[in-house]
């Protein structure tokens, strides 16, 4: 059975949050947890690892107007990176419903909602565009 979703939701902003200022401690904690980049030498210019940007999001995992559908699972992400994140940056994260589509697989019909989060910094530079594909059955 296909999921009935109001396509008028497409493109609508459903959450906007401001995060930061980002601290050096947060970046160092992320580096220590991932080893994504080498730990910087003392006094070196500190830049966050690329995927640090996934922290820049709000608390809603779906638009409130989606109503009663059960939360699905995270099927994947696409990230387009802009300028890097540094300590002191204040990030604004704006979430919209970017796409809604269905796929039919061996286990039946699956509905996908692509939630797009655009992250900018205090200079209004683009930090990243993060598309998260959520799957619902």
């Amino acid at each position, binding site marked *: 059975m296909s999921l009935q979703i109001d396509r008028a939701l497409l493109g609508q902003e459903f959450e906007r949050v401001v995060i930061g200022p980002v601290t050096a401690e*947060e970046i160092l*904690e*992320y580096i*220590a*947890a*991932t*080893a*994504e*980049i080498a730990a910087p030498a003392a006094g070196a210019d500190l830049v966050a*690892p*690329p*995927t640090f940007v*996934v*922290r820049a*999001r709000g608390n809603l995992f779906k638009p409130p107007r989606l109503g009663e559908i059960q939360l699905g*699972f*995270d*099927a*994947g*992400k*696409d*990230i*387009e*990176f802009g300028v890097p994140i540094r300590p002191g940056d204040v990030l604004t994260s704006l979430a919209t419903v970017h796409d809604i589509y269905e796929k039919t697989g061996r286990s039946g019909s699956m509905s996908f909602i692509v939630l797009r989060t655009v992250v900018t910094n205090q200079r209004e530079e683009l930090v990243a565009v993060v598309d998260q*594909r959520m799957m619902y059955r």
Partner: protein
Amino acid sequence: MVEQLDFDHVDVGHELCPLRLTLTGEQVARYAHAARLQAGRFMSDDGARREGLPGQIAPGNMSLALFSRLIGQSFPGMRLRHLSATFRVPLQPRQRITVRGVVTEKHVSDQGSFLDCDLVLESEEGERWVTGTARVALPPPCTAASRG
């Protein structure tokens, strides 16, 4: 020790030196905390069971970090421009995993030198749990002029 490559010395089809690791439950919880993803399923087996899962799982975003780590270790000085991942099977701690990459495209434009890579995170049995792609900007190729 991971090999370090530059644009001039890598060809399409080149396989990156894989990362082989086994995540502990503590490492997953530490990542979840650092990434502001503190749902019970990411923090412990008990937390996962309270959410109806058999045991702790890693956030999908942790796979992205592992992909980025592989790329970063292989191409020093690179800048990641695009990264994607499809989460096929939840990544679980205490399982031996391998993160692999292969160069699929190589091109130079006014914007710089770029490599595209296919990425995969697989189980010890070779089951593909996460697949992905990356586009990497590298320092421009050495030229006679730039070599001085």
